[in-house]
């Protein structure tokens, strides 16, 4: 079954400042969309607002997942409708074990520990980490791999990855990117990856690239867009945007 995620005119305020100023994006199951943009362009705000992070105030717009308005739902219900966020800095939750988290999140408890181990091996995460408390005392790279374990168990319709490549070495990045690629075929997962580095794209082939600046998409194109970015940087896109205005 094909699912759709449609974001229209999304406006979000954080700490009294409008950061997203009418963001649009549409995607389908199995596609890989990459959002690139300089620091401060609103990339992370998009991911957090979509997941209903406290303190992120939606001023307008719509996020439809298979026709259901996510913005009216609680963070829990958004996740249960099939939206997953892998965070840039996944939070430590002392005293809570990954397995208990996943069961509470609705994962099938049958052979869960074995399935988690298999997922951990796919992203080269030491399996003893699975018995520790969620993200506690894990390195940045381990946390991101641990998010991939959750992704593999929860099998969301759409996975958003906020700066998944930051803090990862080349090997880890490769492992994470390969896991995401196979998710697109294994259960037709749609991947929305946020990054400001190009190197992720060497491992994860995008269907579409969106360039973001000052809270909205200023250019959309195929993989070739990343070469333009590599050559010219973000500046021409910013100028393009201001010339439109």
């Amino acid at each position, binding site marked *: 079954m094909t699912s759709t995620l449609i974001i229209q005119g999304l406006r979000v305020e954080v700490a009294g400042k409008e950061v997203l100023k009418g963001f649009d994006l549409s995607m389908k199951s199995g596609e890989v969309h990459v959002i690139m943009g300089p620091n401060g362009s609103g990339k992370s705000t998009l991911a957090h607002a979509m997941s209903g992070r406290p303190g992120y105030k939606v001023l307008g717009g719509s996020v439809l997942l298979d026709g259901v308005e996510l913005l009216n739902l609680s963070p829990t219900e958004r996740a249960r409708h099939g939206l997953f966020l892998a965070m840039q800095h996944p*939070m430590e939750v002392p*005293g*809570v074990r990954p397995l208990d988290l996943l069961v*509470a999140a609705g994962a099938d408890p049958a052979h869960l520990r074995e399935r988690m181990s298999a997922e951990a091996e796919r992203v080269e995460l030491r399996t003893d980490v699975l018995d520790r408390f969620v993200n506690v005392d894990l390195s940045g790279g381990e946390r991101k791999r641990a998010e991939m374990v959750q992704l593999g168990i929860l099998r969301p319709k759409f996975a958003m990855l906020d700066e998944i490549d930051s803090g990862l070495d080349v090997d880890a990045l490769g492992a994470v990117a390969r896991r995401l690629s196979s998710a697109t075929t294994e259960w037709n997962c749609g991947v929305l990856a946020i990054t400001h580095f190009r190197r992720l794209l060497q491992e994860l082939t995008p269907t579409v690239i969106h360039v973001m600046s000052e809270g909205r998409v200023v250019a959309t194109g195929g993989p070739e867009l990343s070469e333009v970015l590599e050559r010219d940087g973000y500046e021409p896109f910013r100028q393009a945007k201001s010339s439109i205005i």
Partner: protein
Amino acid sequence: MKTFAESALSFISDRPDAQDRQRAWSAFEEAGLPTTSDEVWRYAPLKDLVIDSFNVSSAPATQENSPFASQLCERAGLVVRVVDGFCVDSGSAPSGVHVEVVENAISVSGASMQSRYESDTFAVLNNALAPATTVIKIDDGIDVERPIIVLNSTSGSSSFSSTQIKLGRSSSATVVEYFEGGADALVVPLSEYEIGDNASLQLITYQRLSSSAWHVARTTGFLHRDARLRQAVIGMGGHYNRSRNDAEMLGVGAENELRTTFLGSGGQVHDFRTHQFHKSARSRSTLLSKGAVADESRSVYTGLIEIEKGAKRTDARQTNHNLLLSAHAHADSVPNLDIRENDVMCAHASSVGPLNELQRWYLESRGVTRSDAERLMIQGFFYEMLTTLPHELAELVENDVAAALALVKVVAP
């Protein structure tokens, strides 16, 4: 119906060391019960304490193990059973471990019990009324492989148990002191731990008394050179649950890690007091106190770090976090420092508030419901306390804690 004093005096007169006990009893009578005008008793619901509703038992009542206690015992290398303060079964100790029941024991500190505890009313009462002291001794160099369980149950209307655990040089052991029963009873345990040079004691005090019990407990660790005491105190039961947990770092390089936690519900009062006393150089203490109060319950945490002149390069840390789970619950936190040496590292932090919103959101963003997220996080308080327990024991206690938590209404204010 006898008054408490009549039953106490009749108990005392039958004991071989009646004279010493009589002295302790007189000291208790002279001091009288504390009042809330005493700073250290300010938070206790003393108006609910009717001493004549309790009686001192002259013999232990027969007591069946609860299902949980039975499961604990299955995982133990040695089970010592104490009923209503009487050691009724000293188990079969493995090689290098000895269990003795001692009348008129002296304090591990070297002083007599009465002079050691003269300023503490309930400890004095314990000195007068504990049937005997159960002493568990571990020989030098012995690593006790399987956990030792001290099963403490109260079926009468009062219980005064006295326990000493003594680890010889370079020995190690895991001990669980478990408390259950105690409906409408006064439960006053007194424990001392001596950890010899380079020895290591992993200790869990798990209090699962009835919510109608009065529980006034005191423990003291005495740590010699390079000794390690890792103690976790988990308090669930009690109308009033008072737990004083002290450690004296007597030897150079001694190390104490204390974790205390509680869950308050209904109209409970949890009163935790700690004193980490650094008497020697390069000693370390790490204290983490975490608790949650629901319904109309309240809690107080009072912790003192004391550093003696000359205890150079001491490292002492104290952290207290309290969670409010209802708008009618209340928590107080009173950390104190008394430092008489300059060359030390000392830190303390405390907080009172609701659950961490971002941690909760993180769980919710995975699809966990809000109520499950809150329950997982609170459960996590207790699970954190159990991290150093052997796996099979930790799992058992975790399941028991989870079952108790499932009965508590959690409302984030």
